[in-house]
């Protein structure tokens, strides 16, 4: 699964979706009506990613998200419980998070698979796993894989300060690629990942980098660094933890790092681990 383009979009909470509509106009002339913040975030990231390219009509879209559409869900509940009225039809439709990959597909005319996927704390990794499965089986040869999340409303001090939309455009063909998703591997716990790392050098020391997800503690990160002998590539401190921070880290590596390999380790609250290996050419 070769990476041909990457995009990053990070924004503090926006007061009105029209602010994002203005941003989107920088990437596409297509007008979008009845879309909300979550959908606009997805559109900005996806269009920015493929700018100057024309994905094939069979390309697929894998949108990963931790919480999906938050804004319109709250709008609909407000219409129901506070205003005591029927919800606005398109507010209701837009509570379903798969409307975002739909609009990505419609606006880019990519008519392959179209999925909205989550995995608590590991959503981006789960999307990569499923996409790799489809690539390996031959059912998909080209795809956009994105991570999109809003800022939860009324955030307190512990809440993330930014929303994000991070995308990679992947193809089966290597020609012209900037990198590669070389490995996506799930483990039931830390010990199983440690055993996998012990079996072989995951990456050659001195030629690879190690990054850890936001849920990996300082102690655990230090332990992985000791086990692998890799230099640390840090990204979590840039904005602090937020729902799409893993995809931010991956796309940051692909956009800014010199040619190298990255071992990315992440975990969720139940201790499941996922290891990614990405190569940047």
């Amino acid at each position, binding site marked *: 699964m070769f990476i041909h383009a990457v995009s990053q979009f990070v924004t503090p909470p926006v007061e009105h979706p029209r602010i994002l509509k203005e941003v989107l106009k920088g990437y596409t002339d297509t007008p979008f009506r009845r879309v909300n913040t979550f959908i606009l975030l997805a559109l900005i990231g996806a269009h920015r990613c493929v700018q100057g390219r024309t994905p094939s009509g069979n390309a697929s879209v894998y949108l990963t998200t931790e919480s999906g559409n938050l804004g319109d869900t709250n709008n609909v509940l407000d219409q129901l419980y*506070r205003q005591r009225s029927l*919800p606005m039809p398109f507010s*209701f439709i837009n509570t379903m998070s798969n409307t975002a990959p739909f609009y990505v597909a419609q606006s880019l005319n990519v008519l*392959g698979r179209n999925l909205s996927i989550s995995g*608590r704390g590991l959503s981006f990794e789960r999307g990569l796993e499923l996409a790799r499965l489809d690539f390996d089986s031959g059912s998909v040869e080209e795809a956009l894989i994105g991570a999109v999340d809003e800022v939860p409303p009324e955030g307190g001090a512990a809440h993330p300060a930014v929303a994000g939309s991070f995308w990679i455009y992947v193809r089966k063909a290597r020609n012209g690629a900037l990198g590669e998703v070389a490995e996506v591997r799930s483990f039931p716990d830390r010990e199983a990942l440690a055993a996998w790392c012990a079996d072989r050098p995951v990456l050659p020391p001195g030629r690879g980098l190690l990054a850890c997800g936001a849920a990996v503690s300082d102690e655990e990160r230090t332990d992985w660094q000791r086990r692998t002998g890799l230099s640390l590539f840090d990204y979590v401190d840039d904005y602090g933890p937020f729902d799409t921070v893993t995809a931010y880290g991956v796309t940051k590596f692909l956009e800014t790092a010199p040619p190298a390999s990255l071992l990315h380790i992440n975990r969720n609250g*139940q201790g499941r681990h996922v290891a990614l290996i990405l190569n940047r050419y």
Partner: protein
Amino acid sequence: MRNAAMIRGRAIACALGEDLDAVVRGAREMRPRVAELPLSLAGLEEVRPYYLLSRRGPGSLGAAPETFFYEVLFDTVARALADASLRAADLRDLAIFFGSTAIDIPVYEHAYEQTLRETSRPAAMVSSGYGRIADEVAERFGIRGPAYTFTTACTSSANALLYAAAMIAAGRIPRALVIGYDLFSHLGFYGFESLRLIATDGYRPFDRRRSGIIMGEGCGAVVLEADDGGDAGAVLCGGANRVDAHNVTTHALEGGAIAQVMRDALADAEVDAGAVTAIKAHGTGSENNDRMEGNGMVRVFGDALPPFTVLKPLIGHTVGASGVVELILFTACLQRGFCPPTLGFGEADGALLLHPVTEPRPMSRGVYLLNFFGFGGNCTALVAAVRG
């Protein structure tokens, strides 16, 4: 024909009941249970039909919804795991594939309403995250495999089945627990009412007089594992997903994308269209859905359209749960020797002239196509084989 994964265990909770034999009996005897729910929250004096879970007692809507939500979920999963007779080590390695439209909305909206009464600032709350429910199942049953949550509207758990079977076939996982789950929510009930999609005079998919959908609650859980090559049981042979970019709420009427996803599914399963014994149509009963699905089926099968049926008049449209719930109901009926009927059908739509199965029809071993479509143009088709 490719056999991607066999169904080793299964359990269901729906309007027809929770004991699978009783559910199948209800389907054979065509005895749906439909409640009427008021639209009073929106200040309307009308009622709308709804297929509530059989275990719902009078007044149970709104009472401790989080407790009820997890009771139904855990009980259904426990029964499916017991049916699969898994060893402890097998249970630990299970991967979880969860599909739902509403996810935790039934719980969240209740908390929202409570907070609104107390503080008038409910916006401070947020959903607990789409992946939480699968994690709760893992925690409850000691499952350590990966967990994937699919939120693709009414195709959610069909896509969960598609990927679980594909992962097993590829040797990535030994077995999977696939769950489809959607309970009543105000958001869904009033949302579909706002779209004017709820039928008020009976559920009649593909009938000339059809007037919309009737929603239903459902929880289904199946344990899938690599096919043992035996001559009994039901297997998933393959499937496909694609998007129809026509419109976010409706698919293109000519059924082009619908036809393509059926062809893709048959190709993935290595099954010729002529080998299909029968089709479980999605059949929401809305004007557009039945037209586009009918057109799509005719595009694929032409004059040789196999018998087809719609299960929703028996259990309601269980939205994101329908993938797993309808797979269980359909294959269980076939394994007991009949194709369940399309209740409510009486007069063919002149634009389609399609006649679904209207009485329980003797049918068992064979290859079956199962269609699922949803908002956001999502199209999923699965191919299953019943071996007796």
